[in-house]
């Protein structure tokens, strides 16, 4: 099936070449980091996780979001999603590959990564996270591939792929739950120390993932002859709408507890993120923008006139995606570390090397995504034609 | 199947290229160098185990040592003759490097020959190097 991915237009190849170039630059930047250590990043003693782990967290959400097409199709027999489930699964594959790469580049001793499995530690959440992430990646590769192959051959997919699809649903929930548990079980990090963190992560994932999928559907429609279907897009929009509302709701629950209780350990982080504190305020404009984007898109999406307007919808999806990205990709990790447990305000900003590596990984993810989507679209065209 | 010839030629080229490093190594292979025993080690008479055991499995022993010393606090090793030794690779006179104080001739020679780069010295100090 991969052969369909090497027969493409000139535009397709230029796009891949551009991505490969950025990935190459990212790789060179990583070589520098590998040589010199993580000192080339903006991370510090006080903010010991930065951009890499933040992107990882956000992308786990995008991967988990794929389940929002799988679940209605397999559990509720919602036929309209039949044509795009494979897109959801392939999006998850690309996102998870990026997640794993972000974990690797974040390690101080990447050559020892297998120690996680050589000395399995069931008490550590990170151990479980590697298991569920790899498990979900494998599931999506197998399911996506097999279902597409069956479609190409004009036969029904094997029964066992359906069983795997059912298994992948709780797996999707678990990858983001376990990722939230990385943070929310730590004493002394009060920004994360909240039971609503995992639900909040899931809500933002189910908004960001499908929003991104809608945008991808538009692109697929533009560049290939495969049409994911208007109905499917509109239903996805509904899912995005409810998920972003729930996400905003959880955020306000959090804000209420923090500010009504007025427990300093909790308020300091919110103050830092949204108002600035002790002269540290670089994230304030970002966080306020994020809040405006999330609340604004929630209001607009809930109004059918806007949600069902296929011209406006991509703008709303971009708003959701950008808002949740700032929330998780910028604020969530830094916010937990500033101020430090000793109440010292050390701010964090990524360095150039860090950004180049990040863009490199995004490019690798987009290469995987492009190739897989090209394959899916070509086969769907082929079957139709 | 008229592509047979091309396929076989291609395969041959592939196998030759793939195994080239081995041929290359064989061609330039030299006999293994002999480690130089430092005067201090020679004066001590014997290592903690026989020369044969040490040559073959010093890396396994060191791996055991580092686990037991750091993780279980067991820093005394009783060798097969019942003699006690200090479990330490590099700290002070009473350690591996304390006796074998000629890293370049004793350790590096063979490691270079075998093309292995153990990261022991990233942390553990070679007594001579640090004295300089």
């Amino acid at each position, binding site marked *: 099936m991969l052969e369909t991915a090497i027969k493409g237009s000139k535009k397709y190849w230029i796009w891949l070449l551009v991505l490969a170039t950025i990935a190459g630059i990212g790789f060179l930047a990583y070589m520098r980091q590998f040589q010199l250590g993580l*000192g080339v990043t903006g991370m510090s003693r006080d903010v010991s996780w930065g951009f890499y782990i933040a992107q990882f967290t956000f992308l786990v959400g995008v991967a988990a979001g794929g389940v929002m097409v799988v679940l209605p199709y397999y559990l509720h027999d919602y036929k309209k999603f039949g044509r795009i489930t494979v897109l959801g699964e392939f999006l998850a594959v690309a996102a998870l590959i990026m997640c794993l790469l972000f974990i690797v580049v974040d390690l*101080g*001793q990447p050559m020892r*990564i297998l120690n996680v499995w050589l000395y399995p530690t069931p008490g550590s959440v990170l151990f479980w996270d590697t298991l569920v992430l790899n498990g979900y990646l494998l599931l999506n590769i197998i399911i996506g591939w097999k279902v597409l192959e069956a479609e190409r051959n004009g036969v029904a997919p094997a029964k066992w792929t359906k069983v795997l699809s059912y298994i992948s649903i709780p797996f999707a929930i678990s990858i983001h739950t376990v990722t939230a548990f*990385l943070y929310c079980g*730590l004493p002394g*990090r009060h920004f994360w120390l909240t039971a609503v963190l995992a639900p909040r992560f899931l809500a933002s994932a189910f908004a960001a993932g499908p929003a991104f999928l809608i945008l991808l559907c538009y692109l697929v429609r533009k560049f290939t002859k495969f049409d994911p279907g208007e109905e499917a897009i509109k239903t996805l929009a509904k899912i995005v709408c409810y998920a972003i509302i729930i996400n905003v709701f959880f955020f306000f629950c959090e804000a209420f507890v923090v500010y009504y209780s007025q427990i300093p350990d909790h308020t300091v982080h919110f103050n830092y993120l949204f108002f600035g504190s002790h002269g540290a305020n670089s994230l304030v404009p970002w966080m306020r923008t994020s809040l405006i984007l999330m609340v604004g898109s929630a209001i607009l999406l809930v109004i059918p006139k806007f949600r069902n307007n296929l011209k406006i919808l991509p703008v709303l999806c971009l708003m959701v995606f950008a808002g949740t990205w700032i929330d998780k990709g910028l604020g969530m990790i830094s916010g937990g570390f500033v101020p430090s447990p000793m109440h010292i305000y050390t701010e964090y900003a990524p360095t150039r090397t860090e950004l180049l590596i990040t863009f490199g990984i995004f490019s690798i993810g987009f290469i995987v995504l492009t190739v897989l989507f090209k394959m899916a679209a070509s086969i769907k065209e082929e079957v139709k034609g | 199947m008229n592509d047979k010839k091309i396929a076989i030629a291609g395969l041959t080229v592939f196998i030759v290229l793939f195994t080239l490093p081995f041929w290359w190594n064989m061609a330039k292979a030299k006999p293994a160098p002999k480690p130089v025993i430092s005067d201090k080690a020679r004066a001590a008479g014997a290592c903690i185990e026989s020369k044969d055991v040490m040559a073959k499995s010093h890396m396994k022993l060191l791996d055991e040592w580092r686990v037991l010393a750091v993780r279980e606090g067991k820093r*005394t090793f009783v060798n097969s003759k019942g003699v006690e030794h200090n479990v330490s690779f590099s700290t002070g006179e009473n350690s591996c490097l304390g006796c074998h104080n000629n890293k370049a001739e004793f350790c590096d020679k063979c490691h270079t020959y075998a093309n292995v780069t153990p990261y022991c010295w990233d942390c553990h100090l070679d007594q001579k190097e640090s004295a300089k």
Partner: protein
Amino acid sequence: MKNSRREFIKVAGISALGVAAASPVLNALASGGEVAHEEKKVVVKEESSVDSPYKTNKSAIHGARWGMVINTSMIDAKKAAKITAVCHAIHNVPEIPNKKQEIKWIWPDKFEHVFPDKEDPYLAEKFKEMPVMALCNHCDNPPCVRACPTKATFKNSEGIVMMDFHRCIGCRFCMAACPYGSRSFNFSDPRKFLDPAKIDPAFPTRMKGVVEKCNLCAERLAIGKIPACVEASEGAIVFGDLADPKSEVRKLLNSNFTIRRKEALGTLPSVYYII
């Protein structure tokens, strides 16, 4: 070295792994608050019965749960600096110019930073400026050990939270887990910042990409010496076995009011402060 002896180590290691694999889960589930406070027996066993080639040193001093009492009123800025200097010198802790990425094992900090939960606008001036020594608390219920995915950081049989630098993958989960800011990460090769003439060959340096912290001088206890900071403090820091009611630390705890850092978090620090 006979083969049977090596086999023993392997078997012992594997069975220990089995037990260890099950216990963290149980610990995590069971440690809701009821962490044993009763006196523990000294757990150092001499495996005389089995043919193990490894033993603890004869000169080593043992305790069931090592701890410290720091008398802050006896430490002024000068003594605090000396304590830090001694510890950092014997452990080859580098002096890193970029303060954001520095490495610290024991250091003086402000009261408001060491005890941020004891905020008080009417705190007497003398306490505000007093140097308070901060270091790893060697918690009885350490969150860093729980978080570590490779057991590179672990609590040893004598209550010391140890780092196995050979095994650390540098994920820095332990740094996020520690509520005391006691852990440092080697953002770059520490040897770049060490004066080769001053490196103490009696203790290894570290390599880039691993986390480090105070090890309560485990290497000194193994040869019968007390921790270096205790020695340098001239009586201001007292070291001993918290599990032994007759120990000097317990006597101090009996006769003084002491506090520990962020007690509400349930980490059960082994470092006590007399203010």
